[in-house]
């Protein structure tokens, strides 16, 4: 083996080691939660120093899946998440494209202005939206929630997508424009495939936001069966005095799993199309 290769191999080994250590340290609280969820003891604390469960049992998981309407919550979360992602992306892609491609003075100011709107403390936002939705009769409706979530994530999506769109050289579109392609075709056939990592990253962000959001979900939806996962989970733990740590941690792990699975699956789509060579400027 050449000296360079040895150096490379060693470097990689060190890097791997670092990452394994990093993952372990970062995951300690999660492992703790996992051990709680698998133990039969009622309390969260004990004087033992150990990450292994005390009295191994799958009872908590069984309880969650069978006693609580977990599957219904899962379904609700999926529906809301999918709906929000679609609505948010549809609105943001066209807007981001416009902001990226059509230049006019004050463009950046407008964007910055939008971003600053995020600075408003959210505590009173719910009150205002509640009043608004009450007049519009959008309470207790999935569509209402989707609108709220999509609206909350729109600004970020537009900004993010615009940033990525900016990195796609305009020249790529020029060729197709000359051939007479409409804007929609441009978007669909050229921009979106190239901006895949951007779209995926933004969608995942929206997904996680909807998945973990519980405040609006429990306030605007009135029936426990229409709760999302986060809402149901919130109810399981809300009271200091009635919390069952085993149940609660088991539910948390189950709630986080789908996100992780999705995340793992989309990894391979994250590679940008630009690396394939595109158009050399």
């Amino acid at each position, binding site marked *: 083996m050449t000296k360079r290769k040895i150096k490379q191999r060693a470097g*990689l080994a060190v*890097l*791997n080691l*670092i*990452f394994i250590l*990093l*993952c372990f340290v*970062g995951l*300690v*609280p*999660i492992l703790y*939660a996992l051990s709680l969820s698998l133990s039969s003891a009622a309390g*969260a*604390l004990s004087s033992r120093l150990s990450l292994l469960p005390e009295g191994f049992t799958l009872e908590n998981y069984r309880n969650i899946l069978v006693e609580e309407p977990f599957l219904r919550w899962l379904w609700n979360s999926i529906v809301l998440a999918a709906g929000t992602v679609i*609505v948010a992306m*549809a609105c943001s892609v*066209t*807007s981001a*494209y*416009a902001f990226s491609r*059509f230049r*006019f003075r004050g*463009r*950046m100011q407008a964007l*910055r202005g939008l971003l*600053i*709107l995020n*600075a*408003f403390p*959210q505590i*009173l*936002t719910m*009150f*205002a*939206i509640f009043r*608004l939705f009450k007049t519009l009769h959008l309470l207790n409706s999935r569509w209402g929630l989707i*609108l709220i979530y999509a*609206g909350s994530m*729109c*600004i*970020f999506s*537009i*900004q*993010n997508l615009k*940033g990525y769109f*900016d*990195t796609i050289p305009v020249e790529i579109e020029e060729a197709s424009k000359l051939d007479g392609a409409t804007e929609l075709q441009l978007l669909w056939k050229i921009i979106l495939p190239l901006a895949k*990592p*951007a779209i995926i*990253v933004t969608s995942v*962000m929206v997904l*996680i936001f909807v*998945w*973990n959001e*519980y405040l609006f979900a429990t306030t605007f939806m009135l029936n426990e069966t229409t709760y999302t996962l986060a809402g149901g989970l*919130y109810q399981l733990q809300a009271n200091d005095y009635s919390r069952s740590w085993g149940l609660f941690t088991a539910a948390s792990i189950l*709630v986080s799993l789908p*996100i992780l699975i999705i*995340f793992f699956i989309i990894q391979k789509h994250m590679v*940008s199309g630009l690396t394939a060579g595109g158009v050399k400027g």
Partner: protein
Amino acid sequence: MRKKRQISVWLHSLPAMVLIGGIIVFPIIYTAYISLTNMNLFHWDNYEMIGMDNYVRALFKVDTGFLTAILTTLLWTALNMAFQVVIAFFIALGLNAPGLRLKNVYKTLLMFPWAMPAYVSILLWKVGIYNTEFGLANKVLSALGFEKINYLSRNVPAFLSCMVLNLWMALPFMIMMFDGALQSIDKSYYESAKMDGAGFWMQVFHITVPSVKPIMAPSVIMTTFTTFKQFDIIYLLTQQKGALTGATLQTIITYAHQNAFVSNNYGLSSAVSMIIFVLIVVISLFLNRGLKENDDV
């Protein structure tokens, strides 16, 4: 022609703008309206306009506590952002090293803190890690022979503890953003740089950092705002009713919560929120002047 473009942009953005208008802009306007009324528990349905009274009251409440809160908040935001950006950048760089075969596994594992709902994480840390008697942190310390530390009862340790928790929860997002940004950099830049003889760190500083800046800007700005507004961590760790830990750490939001929102006086709380909002806008405009480069790409 320019005007046509302007109109075109806004037309394209119409659905987005409608959403943003209803969900983000409307609450601000509504809150401003309520701040001019005397809506509170005693005037729940029959409130009336009282003009700027609430603002006057809110400003009178400004005392040393408020100033300390502002300073704490600025320190909190600055430190958290600095750590987040630097650490996430390097982790993302490491993840993108060629030949790292398990990188998808690492990425997924590192995302776990983000996938877990926030209050679950905070509760776990509060009870499982920071608890003086039985938390993991102190258990490890005692096993190693050190004395137990009280993490949450004085301001400085409480600040650091909250910061560690915030980093733990927020890094995955930053890492993912950096990772995505790194993917979009044209590899040909690196190739030509390598041919010119540039070493690894030279490449990083002269190609990676500048290319990543514009893409990361919105994420960084948004995270800065989120960090600034961070309420749950500090509140749930140190100030939950029935579980005060003795630390008197306050950021603007917790201060506002303790002094205005708890009173259920919506008129006053709205005024306080508006004031905070204006404060944040002013601060960010200030900062914007300093970061004037990279505007119209």
